[in-house]
């Protein structure tokens, strides 16, 4: 009669995910086009940040190159969409096929990184991913025949579907699409981390040797974590390309990649809610600081330099302070519900927040 607990839990997660997605889509009616555009950007960033928080928080692997995986998604999407446009395919099929191509390309890159990650210890992996994101502009330039160098690729404008065109503006439609994709990605991530894969990732993170003795294939688990994380980042890249109708190396710099790490750490490692807080912060704080700086009557150059560097300074300082003082992140300050199934075992290592990140 009763449902299998796992299926039940997954169904619950999907229901909650769908409800939150609908709620967020409803929220777009409260915002003007500018803020809907910002919301779409936040949703795209959230896909990548959520993937990164799973990778770092649950499997203990640090990637400084998630912007490169987003770029892979963006380029995959743009190339596919342009090819489909030439073939006369438009609308939803074009978007979905483009999204799948983006996910496939980012996933493949993530798989390769994962293979390297399975053999490397923490700081080495961080170095390789750093080299990867620095190589993004070089790849775009060397293959400029296809990727168009620094200029990047432009894609065809995607109008609001006809039955909605009288109701909403294009920015709102873009926000809807971005939120829907983010909703699906995050629901999928939550189901995965609550399931077997999540358990294996945490086992390998906490004690690789013990996990191996327990029959967990550590290498495969690390690769799987990387692929999952890369797929999320790829979806984020595709959404960002859909929203801005372009993809270029300038959007996926080292600085942006480090901001994703900031988002994940500030929010709280391994927490989806933390990734939401972090993504909102990294999109909104530069805007807020820009507005605050604009309120003072300073010389134009000082103002420009302040607006450009103050967010970086604040994020860097927050990163240091949060990491050293409150490693659980901002989401960790809020009271949280005890895990449903394991409430009885008050074992911190079962929780989704790592007590420590080991390099093993």
């Amino acid at each position, binding site marked *: 009669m009763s449902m299998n607990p796992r299926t039940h839990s997954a169904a619950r997660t999907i229901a909650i995910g769908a409800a939150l997605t609908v709620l967020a889509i409803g929220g777009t009616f409260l915002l003007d086009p500018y803020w809907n555009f910002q919301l779409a950007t936040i949703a795209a960033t959230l896909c990548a940040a959520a993937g990164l928080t799973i990778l*770092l928080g649950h499997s*203990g692997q*640090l990637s*400084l190159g998630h912007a490169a995986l987003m770029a892979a998604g963006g380029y995959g999407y743009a190339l596919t969409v342009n090819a489909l446009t030439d073939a006369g395919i438009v609308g939803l099929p074009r978007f979905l096929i483009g999204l799948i191509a983006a996910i496939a390309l980012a996933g493949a890159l993530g798989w390769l990184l994962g*293979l*390297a990650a399975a*053999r*490397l*210890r*923490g*700081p*080495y992996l*961080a*170095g*390789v991913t*750093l*080299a*990867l994101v*620095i*190589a993004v*502009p*070089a*790849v775009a*330039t*060397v293959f400029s025949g296809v990727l168009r160098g620094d200029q990047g690729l432009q894609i065809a404008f995607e109008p609001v579907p006809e039955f909605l065109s009288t109701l909403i503006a294009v920015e709102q439609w873009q926000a809807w699409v971005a939120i829907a994709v983010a909703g699906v990605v995050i629901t999928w991530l939550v189901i995965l981390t609550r399931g077997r894969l999540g358990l294996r990732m945490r086992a390998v993170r906490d004690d690789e040797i013990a996990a191996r003795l327990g029959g967990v294939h550590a290498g495969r688990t690390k690769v799987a974590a990387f692929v999952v994380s890369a797929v999320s980042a790829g979806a984020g890249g595709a959404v960002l390309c859909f929203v801005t109708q372009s993809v270029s190396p300038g959007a996926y710099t*080292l600085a942006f990649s*480090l901001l994703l*790490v*900031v988002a994940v*750490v500030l929010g709280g490692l391994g927490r989806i809610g933390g990734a939401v807080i972090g993504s909102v912060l990294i999109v909104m704080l530069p805007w807020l600081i820009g507005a605050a700086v604009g309120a003072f009557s300073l010389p134009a*150059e000082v103002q420009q*330099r*302040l607006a*450009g*560097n*103050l967010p*970086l*300074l604040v*994020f*860097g*300082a*927050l*990163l*240091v302070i949060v*990491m*050293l003082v409150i*490693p659980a992140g901002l989401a960790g300050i809020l009271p949280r519900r005890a895990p449903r199934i394991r409430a009885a075992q008050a074992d911190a290592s079962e929780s989704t927040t790592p007590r*420590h*990140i*080991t*390099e093993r």
Partner: protein
Amino acid sequence: MDRLLFLFATGLARGAVFALFALSLVLIWRAARMINFAQGAMALVATYVAFAATAATGSYWIGLAIGILAGAATGWGAERGVMRFVPHGRPLTGVIVAIGLVMVLQAVLGFLFGPQFRPMRTPFDDSPITVGGIPLLSPYDLFVLITALVIMAGLALLFTRTSLGLQLRAAAFAPEVSRILGVRVSRMVTIGWVLSSAVAALAAMLLVPTELGLNPHATDMLFVYAFAVAVVGGLDSPAGALLGGLTVGVAMTLVTGYLGATAAPIGVLVLLVVVLLIKPGGIFSMKEVRGA
């Protein structure tokens, strides 16, 4: 053939700088078991100080000396102010904190000096000398090569022949035992950081004049190169850092010379992945890398 010789010779000079910077990473690794991802940004602060000092005094050498002191001071500040609070045995926490430090330093430099590239002068001519009709090293390259080798030899002497060197090594390898025997371990770790960032500052000051110029991101690529060198050479081996540095320097100069400057980041990525997949401990490290 001439071009190959020229690139090879220039590559040696660049490689010596990479080796020097990688050696600074090795120094911190040996002192604190941490890869300092902020090393590039810290060296950049010192380079800006040197730039300002040279501009103020008109002398390259005073700028260089002040820059090295500024590097040492940055290392002291970073260790005492931030990195010492990173819990032991959590290398990823160290990496993330260092990244935060990079952002802070680059933001401050960006605010003070703006994003533009500032050309740095060299104390010697940087057009190549011709030997038997073949253009080879420039006098500046020669200066760089000799300086790097002298500093490395000096560090080797310091570590193997002096009491301080012995204490530094003892504090790194067996902190508890060293403490019982009267070595001030925490001071030794600080000295390791100070030495390391002074060396890194020197490397950055030697390299920046040959590149595009001074900019808040001028050492991003140097760090990636030096990281590649440290990985190729093995993080535990100063000799490995030298051999690895020369290898990476020559390899990257050849890639740049034949395929163009844009291909260099791809070249270093390929090199990193290949080395890490084939021999994760580093090509030149004989012993297995000790666990952290």
